[in-house]
């Protein structure tokens, strides 16, 4: 395990440093800290008395991250190891073994392993799944190819559309027809099913090959025919994987339901093999631990559920990241925050309100044009609602025909990687720009395990950005850095707006390798005044695994006007979904008494096409008890909830139009683990301790430069107007930014209780670098997170403490300082 690093035991008392003057310590806003496992009653108890460790494991493209937690003491251990692409299960087993050894624990101490994987996404993108066929209603085998008859780009006539997972010669029709209300128009002809079965046999389906999606028109309204087709095919074609659309995604809209069902069955065999190997590896290691899988919607599920519905795991990694942000926010009293995860290839943002990440059922995989909405296959499974854009450290910068700088979505990936990796990459990337601007240390990338080559970075920027635009290399790098910030901010804001929310004044929760480098720039554009960089930012997602409850989402379509609704039907649907949920969760070791349900309806005004998801209020649920249904009361309560939600979303009351329901949902969840967040515990070595007086809040602005703890400073590019930091000897002024000799400190040397440090300062740790601009300050809160606050939160009276980029962005071409007010000159 070359890339391991560890945390260690958490301090028993978070309020350390007694006697130290604490200039700016954030009060703990959350409730009193709890130990791991408080909320896990019904999980830990049922499983060996001695076992008290939980592990979260995230397998990414490059790294496998692991977080181990001792529920008894609250100690946490991190590990990071290279992914073993040939057999990821092997990497999982060795990661667990290694981290247990570090923690001086044995495999028998481990009671739960929670796992997330990109296997499903990768299989779909690389088209590595099973040979897959579709069985559908007579007349509709092409519906999945005709799709929505839509070009996702209005002007590009050379665009490609996503290929269906089942080619046309493997799409078959059976004689049957349901109506929208679930009544039978044409009974199922079993002869036509048998004919399909023999076609499939001839095509080689059976034994160890082949998958079939059964998606019949209006199967969501009446699944009888789908079930009958499925039963017959299972009998006729043993070994073939079969998925029924009403089980995978029981929602109206045949195209989306079909693509989802196809995607599910396409990866099923692959997922089964993978899960078996992991389970085998676990038991071979002698661990009694049970395995839970992270779902895209932020819950966990058993291996059996994951085998049946692998598509539900499609976004499990990013979902865990958002979940970690939400958990951290709940812990520290920040129930509203923007989770900002910037890695090598993409950035993901998720707006969390009320301590809970939002969930959507609109998701696309395998986008033909990466990140372009509409260019992928729609997948209707619940997923944490986040936006992902092609802006990461490896994103390539170029100059377009308008002489504008564009960044991404093309990425240099890990191979060849950014130019500065020195592996043959010649295209300039965001990482190259960040390196030239001084944000990254060429000698301390990944903790010094990898050297970055500034010369190569400069050459790439010179050739592809600086020269075409007549800029200096530094100006060009500055522009690349700023453009990518702007793109991420625009995407985050759009994400929020589409959900009727506002990003301004919401703290930014930054993680991922590049997140803490760019967070301040993004925060400024969004109007955020606070940035939180959690301890273990580089393995942030794994924390999410450990705070996810066992959970599963159910949906049934019942399309009806509320004023003409058969409320007995609704009560029946909800009760059925609850029963299924309770069974699923008790199979996952949750005590039946601990199962909680959330009930939702997707409602809209008659005539509208977009639904509003409304939580069914207690009043309505009482009125929908199957024993004594009170339709009038249920309707009234649901209408009130709809009106309230609509107003909140669109700032306007709904017009007086009848309301209709489209889908009914039940989410069944086990207890949410109540956790204390991992915090750094390694004692700070004497002599490297930061002392107030070296870098401290009380210092006059000019006195701090050049006197870093070990005298470590380097020139770093900061926005012009940072003013006070510029001094003779700096590289001087360029358009829109200045070089400032900036202290560089190791994160391990920062500790809770040390007075806030004024920016500019660069904080380095193994997997990331945190950038604190002039006018912002940074302190360490008891959770171990770095908290960076804008100048407005600090003592006033210093110039240039706010609005540190955009207002002074000015043109190198203009030669001298001009304000945007004079941009026409």
């Amino acid at each position: 395990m070359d890339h391991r690093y560890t945390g260690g035991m958490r301090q028993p008392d978070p309020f350390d440093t007694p006697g130290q003057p604490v200039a700016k310590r954030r009060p703990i806003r959350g409730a009193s800290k709890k130990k791991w496992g408080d909320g896990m009653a019904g999980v830990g108890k049922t499983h060996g008395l001695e076992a008290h460790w939980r592990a979260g494991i995230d397998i990414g493209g490059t790294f496998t991250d692991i977080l181990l937690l001792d529920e008894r003491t609250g100690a946490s251990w991190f590990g990071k190891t290279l992914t073993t692409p040939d057999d990821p299960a092997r990497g999982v087993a060795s990661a667990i073994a290694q981290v247990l050894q570090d923690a001086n624990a044995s495999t028998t101490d481990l009671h739960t392993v929670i796992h997330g994987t990109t296997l499903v996404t990768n299989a779909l993108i690389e088209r590595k799944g099973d040979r897959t066929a579709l069985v559908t209603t007579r007349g509709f085998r092409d519906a999945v190819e005709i799709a929505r008859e839509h070009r996702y780009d209005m002007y590009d006539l050379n665009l490609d559309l996503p290929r269906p997972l089942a080619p046309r010669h493997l799409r078959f029709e059976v004689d049957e027809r349901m109506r929208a209300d679930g009544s039978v128009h044409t009974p199922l002809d079993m002869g036509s099913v048998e004919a399909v079965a023999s076609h499939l046999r001839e095509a080689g389906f059976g034994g160890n090959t082949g998958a079939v999606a059964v998606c019949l028109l209006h199967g969501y309204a009446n699944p009888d025919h789908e079930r009958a087709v499925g039963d017959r095919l299972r009998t006729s074609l043993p070994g073939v994987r079969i998925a029924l659309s009403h089980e995978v995604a029981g929602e109206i809209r045949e195209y989306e339901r079909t693509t989802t069902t196809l995607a599910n069955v396409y990866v099923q065999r692959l997922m089964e093999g993978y899960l078996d190997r992991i389970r085998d590896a676990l038991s071979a290691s002698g661990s009694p631990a049970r395995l839970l899988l992270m779902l895209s919607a932020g819950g966990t599920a058993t291996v059996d559920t994951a085998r049946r519905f692998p598509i539900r795991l499609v976004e499990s990694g990013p979902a865990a990241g958002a979940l970690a942000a939400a958990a951290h926010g709940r812990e520290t009293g920040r129930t509203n925050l923007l989770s900002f995860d910037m890695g090598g290839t993409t950035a993901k943002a998720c707006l969390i309100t009320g301590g809970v990440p939002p969930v959507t059922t609109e998701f696309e995989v395998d986008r033909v044009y990466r990140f372009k909405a509409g260019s992928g296959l729609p997948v209707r499974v619940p997923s944490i609602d986040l936006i992902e854009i092609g802006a990461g450290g490896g994103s390539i910068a170029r100059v377009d025909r308008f002489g504008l700088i564009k960044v991404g979505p093309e990425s240099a990936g890990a191979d060849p990687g950014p130019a500065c990796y020195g592996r043959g990459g010649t295209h300039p990337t965001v990482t190259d720009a960040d390196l030239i601007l001084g944000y990254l240390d060429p000698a301390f990338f990944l903790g010094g395990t990898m050297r970055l080559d500034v010369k190569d970075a400069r050459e790439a920027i010179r050739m592809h950005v600086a020269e075409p635009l007549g800029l200096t290399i530094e100006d060009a790098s500055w522009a690349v850095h700023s453009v990518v910030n702007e793109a991420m901010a625009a995407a985050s804001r759009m994400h929020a707006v589409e959900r009727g929310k506002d990003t301004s004044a919401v703290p930014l929760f930054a993680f991922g390798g590049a997140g803490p480098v760019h967070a301040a720039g993004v925060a400024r554009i969004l109007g955020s005044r606070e940035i939180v960089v959690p301890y273990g930012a580089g393995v942030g997602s794994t924390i999410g695994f450990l705070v996810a409850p066992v959970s599963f989402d159910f949906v049934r379509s019942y399309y009806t006007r509320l004023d003409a609704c058969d409320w007995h039907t609704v009560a029946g649907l909800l009760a059925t979904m609850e029963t299924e949920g309770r069974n699923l969760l008790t199979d996952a070791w949750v005590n039946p008494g601990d199962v909680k349900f959330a009930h939702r309806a997707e409602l809209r005004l008659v005539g509208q096409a977009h639904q509003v998801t409304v939580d069914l209020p207690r009043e309505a649920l009482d009125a929908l008890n199957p024993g004594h249904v009170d339709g009038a009361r249920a309707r009234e309560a649901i209408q009130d909830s709809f009106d309230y939600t609509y107003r909140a979303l669109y700032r306007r009351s709904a017009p007086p139009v009848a309301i209709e329901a489209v889908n009914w949902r039940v989410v069944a969840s086990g207890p949410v683990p109540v956790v204390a967040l991992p915090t750094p515990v390694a004692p700070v070595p004497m002599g490297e301790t930061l002392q107030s007086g070296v870098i401290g809040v009380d210092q006059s602005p000019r006195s701090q430069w050049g006197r870093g703890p070990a005298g470590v400073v380097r020139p770093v590019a900061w926005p012009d107007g940072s003013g006070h930091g510029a001094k003779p000897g700096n590289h001087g002024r360029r358009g829109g930014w200045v070089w400032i000799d900036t202290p560089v400190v190791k994160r391990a040397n920062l500790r809770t209780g040390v007075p806030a440090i004024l920016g500019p300062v660069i904080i380095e740790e193994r997997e990331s670098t945190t950038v604190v601009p002039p006018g912002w300050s940074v302190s360490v809160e008891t959770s171990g997170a770095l908290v960076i606050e804008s100048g407005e939160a600090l003592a006033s009276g210093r110039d240039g403490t706010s609005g540190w980029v955009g207002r002074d962005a000015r043109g190198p071409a203009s030669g001298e300082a001009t304000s945007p007010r004079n941009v026409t000159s």
Partner: protein
Amino acid sequence: MIDPLTLEVFWSRLIATVNEQATSLMRTAFSPTVAEAGDLSACVFDPRGYMIAQAVTGTPGHINSMARCIRHFLDACPPETLVPGDVLVTNDPWKTSGHFHDITVVTPIFRASRSSTESSGPRASISPLQGVGDTLQPGEMGWGEAPDLVAFFGTICHVADIGGRPFSTDARELYEEGLFIPITHLFRAGVPNEELLRIVRANVREPDSVVGDLYAMATSNDVGGARLLEFLDEFDLPSIIPLADEVIARSEQAMRDAIQRVPDGTYRHSLTMDGYAEPGRPGEPDREVPITLACTITVTGDTLHVDFDGTSPVAPRGINVVMNYTEAYSTYGIKCALAPDVPNNEGSFRPVTITAPVGSILNCQPPAPVAGRHIVGQWLPAVVHGALAQAIPDQVIADGSSSLWITQFSGSDDRQSLATGGDGVGGRRFSMVFFNSGGMGARPTKDGLSSTAFPSGVRGVPAEIVEARAPLLIMERSLRTGSGGAGTHRGGLGHRLVIRADGITGDLRFSPFFDRTRVAAPGRDGGHAGGLGDYFLREIVPSDPPLPPLRPHPKATTYVPQGMEIVMDLPGGGGIGDPRGRDPERVVADLRDGYITQPE
């Protein structure tokens, strides 16, 4: 001159602003064509009326005609007469996008005068959200003496109904096509124009939906305006005019550069479409009135002129096109071929000029009927592409089905079922419109896309949604084998759609808007033509002896007799290049998947 970085930042922000505006409209709109099919547009203009950004959505017929509409609003309501909280509206086909169903709403955006707030630190944004729709008076909104007009936001959306005949090409004059709303106030200083709303409600079949959409449009303009004001405040910009000038100048230059790369010359092309054929009297064949669309493109240096001289005169039914719409689809076709990545704004329009003879079907005058103007207007990209193919063949696609096959159904929904929205009694009036698309023409290096809208930008509606909303059954939606024109690069396939009534005791009223049933999409450079479209009614259960299919006119409203179903065969796209030059592996794959039955 704004430096590239600042410009990129500002420009992206403007585009994000109009995208937010469009998203807000899609989520709150009632008309299914807006919310389900995406038939809408949203954009921002500077105070001079120059369009500077459009949302990345919508459909070309809206966007480009909206760029032209703003000057009419300014003529009718000069800026000095506008006050905060005003919202303007019209559906004047000649001033906006060509038929009554498209309503345009324009909102002027103001902010407090600089002088009145200079002393009080940073100016507070005046959120237009505080104004429209509430009962606040201007004084209460905190405006100073003379607020500055900083921008206009505009949206167009296709409403569910506009009175007159149900949506069809049947009218012989404009007055039959519904309610005409000249440019007027939808809100005056934040107060709704109740007289107008009462007139609208009294005239349309779905008043809640139409009035709901008017409100949704005003709200979406507010959302855009609020975001723009935040942007101006954040960067302390007094005006967007310098930014507009920069955006327009760069787009104009890029468009001129693109035109410059087209060899100078004059390129002529003409196409014949089915047009409107008068149904024959009983026992007589239809009286054909085919339509010729002729264009002459003149490229001189960095300017391009399109003239439609030689085009047929106005038609007797509602398929006539106003000049705004002619300009919209012509410039769209040119931009796709020459400069797909140049943003659409005032600047990209400037180097291109369009003329059409007054009184021709492409420059019709009131009271010519216009409801189905898309049938002809959506052919214009194919017409200009045909001319441009002579100059830049590698940038131009072959002809496809061109116009959308729009289907409009209405009648009485007698389904008793509560699950399908019935009230348990039956007899609910229903109106359902949806769009269908045939194949696109082959691309210079790729096959054409099957069953994909071009040039329109709208979507199809799922069969399950159609059937849940209307007493219809869609019995088949399948690709038409062999309908893609053969070629080195094959044309896209059309599809067959079979629709019948299910749960209607009365008549099913059906208005089709179909073309290419007589003239197939031609191939290019040795490529073959795409499959011809077809439309007929046939017996669901053949009687003995079977009745021959009925062939109603493809553009005339018909009542579908009981026991019959509608069959629509949508046309395919033309191919490019000799079919014998096609990669043999692709021929084998086409055979295996049944896109063709035999190699050409």
